[in-house]
């Protein structure tokens, strides 16, 4: 806790566990950055490769499912399943629950665990296909050698779900300082397809390897939300405005006659969008385009296109095989924002104006109707742009992007050159009827709520939400839940319908999986309406009215909104 990583034990799992602990608890970016740098300074190369892999979402395959893992813990700690569940509900994290319940080895502080992070991860890979007994022997004997911190990290490595307070950008920055190479170069080199088990640190960070991996995307440049007066941005004509489309940000890459589609989450999605095969034939080699993967209605003529609600796209992702029906009901197009590589050259350093010209050239040479260039919105004053913004929803967009014409294409979220100016969300007043304990940092509080609208004298649940309140408000609602629960079903409590909240959301779609017949996009609590009573909330009728207005593009079967 707060100790320096530069202990005297050498770099073992313990140091990695300490790093994770600092990253997870520190509230200051600089402290986290420093901890990462300290680690990179002293860690063995193979450990570094694994840390890069883990923090960029390249986890080793899960070797055992959580239920079996929990079963071994029950056995060792000699406790009943109900008590384990009770603990899990309080902790909110399975790996941590297990780490807390396993007995502590009295002597482990003196002897110490000599194994390294890579040792554990390589062993996971080695025993992946072995019997359950082999895995059990390895895991339970590893537990015996570890302190609580190590057990936690080890369990997280086994169960996947390694989400701690560190962004890929932060990791890249720390690495850049350690190896003294600029962070945009690092970010590019560690992107794409590589296997931590077979890649050495030198290979990973060396130019030559990067050049031979043709699939490698560039790190995405992300915008900040406009947070001040637009006038402060200066002269209007230094800026370009476009619609902000609501799909999945992606990169399409054509290199070496091969074609790749990457999502912003650095997931390779080439197979999911057979429509894009046409681009593959038409785009010249050495082209990388940044844009939006999005469901579009009927193939557009005359450049006019209208996106389908996000729910349509959702029917396409998360599925292994795509049916013909999906292809016709939710066809996917691509709206191009930017070009990052042209004729094999990385042109991110050029100004956006120059890049836009090249992009227009490239798009003009293709003739596939679902590939569009993101239209530029012309405007003379910020005020005028504000008026245009109010039409976003009619366009099927979620607001406006404002980009500095002279800006290079940067990596990660950076202030200054790109801004997003989203439209105000839709809102509805609803009453809370169920509550459930949160996970992770809110594991001891009731923070996950289900909300209902009125339908005559009945209440109809229509959405869940778990964000938008301050910690103080959550504490107050939590105490209300504890005092006013009517029934308990497992972790869920039925609560007296008394607290009214304004629920904000970005979109609405018809759904036959929800009792209310609607599914919301990005619902969250925007305000606690302490001024309203439960009988003053909105009605199911109001929701249906919204659906009529904002979901004219047709009915979509939402799977998991």
């Amino acid at each position, binding site marked *: *806790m*707060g100790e320096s990583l530069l202990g005297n034990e050498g770099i073992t799992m313990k140091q990695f566990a300490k790093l994770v602990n600092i990253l997870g608890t520190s*509230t200051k970016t600089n402290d986290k950055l420093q901890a990462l740098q300290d680690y990179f300074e002293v860690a063995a190369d193979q450990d570094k490769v694994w840390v890069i892999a883990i923090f960029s979402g390249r986890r080793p395959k899960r070797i055992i499912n959580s239920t079996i893992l929990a079963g071994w813990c029950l056995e060792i700690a000699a406790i009943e399943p109900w008590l384990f569940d009770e603990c899990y509900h309080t902790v909110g994290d399975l790996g941590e629950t297990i780490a807390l319940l396993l007995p502590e080895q009295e002597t482990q502080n003196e002897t110490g665990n000599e194994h390294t992070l890579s040792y554990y991860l390589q062993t996971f890979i080695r025993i992946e296909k072995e019997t359950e007994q082999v895995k059990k022997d390895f895991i339970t004997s590893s537990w015996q050698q570890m302190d609580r911190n190590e057990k936690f990290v080890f369990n997280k490595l086994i169960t996947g779900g390694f989400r701690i307070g560190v962004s890929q950008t932060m990791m890249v920055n720390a690495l850049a300082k350690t190896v003294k190479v600029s962070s945009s170069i690092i970010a590019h080199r560690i992107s794409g397809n590589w296997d931590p088990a077979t890649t050495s640190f030198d290979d990973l960070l060396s130019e030559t390897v990067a050049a031979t991996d043709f699939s490698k995307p560039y790190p995405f440049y992300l915008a900040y939300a406009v947070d001040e007066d637009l006038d402060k941005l200066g002269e209007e004509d230094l800026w370009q405005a476009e619609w902000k489309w609501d799909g999945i940000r992606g990169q399409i890459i054509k290199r070496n006659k091969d074609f790749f589609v990457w999502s912003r989450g650095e997931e390779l999605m080439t197979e999911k969008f057979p429509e894009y095969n046409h681009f593959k034939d038409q785009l010249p080699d050495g082209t990388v385009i940044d844009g939006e993967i999005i469901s579009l209605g009927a193939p557009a003529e005359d450049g006019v296109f209208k996106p389908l609600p996000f729910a349509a796209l959702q029917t396409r992702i998360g599925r292994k095989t795509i049916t013909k029906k999906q292809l016709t009901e939710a066809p996917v197009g691509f709206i191009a924002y930017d070009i990052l590589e042209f004729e094999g050259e990385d042109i991110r350093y050029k100004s956006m104006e120059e890049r836009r010209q090249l992009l227009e050239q490239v798009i003009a040479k293709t003739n596939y109707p679902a590939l569009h260039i993101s239209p530029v919105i012309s405007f003379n004053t910020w005020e005028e742009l504000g008026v245009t913004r109010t039409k976003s929803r009619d366009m099927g967009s979620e607001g406006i992007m404002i980009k500095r014409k002279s800006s290079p294409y940067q990596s990660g979220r950076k202030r200054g050159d790109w801004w997003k100016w989203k439209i105000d969300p839709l809102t509805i007043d609803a009453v809370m009827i169920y509550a459930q304990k949160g996970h992770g940092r809110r*594991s001891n509080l009731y923070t996950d709520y289900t909300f209902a609208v009125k339908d005559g004298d009945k209440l109809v649940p229509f959405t869940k939400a778990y964000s938008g309140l301050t910690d103080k408000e959550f504490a107050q609602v939590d105490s209300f839940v504890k005092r006013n629960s009517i029934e308990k079903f497992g972790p869920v409590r039925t609560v007296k319908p008394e607290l009214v909240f304004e629920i904000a959301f970005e979109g609405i779609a018809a759904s036959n999986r929800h009792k209310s017949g609607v599914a919301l996009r990005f619902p969250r609590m925007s305000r606690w309406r302490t001024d309203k009573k439960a009988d003053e909330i909105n009605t199911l009728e109001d929701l249906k009215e919204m659906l009529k207005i904002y979901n004219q593009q047709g009915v979509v079967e939402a799977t998991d909104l």
Partner: protein
Amino acid sequence: MPLIEFSDKGLYCRQGNFYIDPWKPVDKAVITHAHSDHARWGSKYYLCHHLTKPLLQLRLGDNLYESVDWNEPVFINGVKVSLHPAGHIIGSAQIRVEYEGEVWVASGDYKTEDDGISGAFEPVPCNTFITESTFGLPIYKWKKQLDIFEDIKNWVAQNKENKKTSVLIAYSLGKAQRVLMPLSEMGLPVYVHGAVWNVHQALVNSGWKLPEVTRVQPDTPKEDLVGNIVIAPPSADGTPWMKKFYPYSVGTCSGWMQVRGNARRRNTDAGFALSDHADWYGLLQAVKATGAQKVYATHGFQSAFSRFLNEQGIEAGEVKTEYGGEEEESKAAEETEEIIMDNG
């Protein structure tokens, strides 16, 4: 009729016509300890331990107090009442109640590890034991006090090296005095918030020898604080009062810090799972040591703890009280109080 009933005002002994830690004003109150969720304002008479009396005076003002020593029986309408160390904070007591050969013990808050200032928990044999269960889940297993102190000292030393002030969040009564011992060994000046100062003074005035501390004043020079230690109550965490210490690192001492998510939610830089309550193993050990045939669990994870006891063959029930339960709620109570007390 049971010797102690669970009434809407608190634990009630009908035969003796007195309450233990009532949460509403009553005629006769027997108080386990001076925390605000146990010692409430408005009763006509308070019976407590000698060490608790000055703390009640500080928190509740002038009232009719009677104080006794450990195991010094008082008879109230034929009911024998005596106080026994609970090890929770200074003066904290378990209340033993005996009538016609039947013995009940109400634990109040307790911990089984001897922290060196709160008195060593004494197991009291009884027929019925009313136990707290704030940390009544097996995930709560405390490290030894000495090891946690070591962690805290390392953290302070590291901050000092980085030229940061160590702001340690600890309840003004109990935890603050407890962490003061190891901190004073570091030879660094220790500054305290007004709420901690008030408790500290009350204890010093009643004869406690505590390490020296300095109250943070509006005119305390910033240079004096750099790299040193500040002890503040939870209510001060995140308020503008902290600005003065910048650059600083915040460490929170609370049993809830056992779970990572809680440390993150409190936005604290370092969490130390140092508690004045018994952990799961301490609770079990205490229950077994009483030899009680019947146990009532309250104040925390009572349903899980009582279910577990039943499975172990110890008849147990859960009781709803208005004691802090999850430290969060008692924190709210304590906060208001501390704001009132901290006039400077």
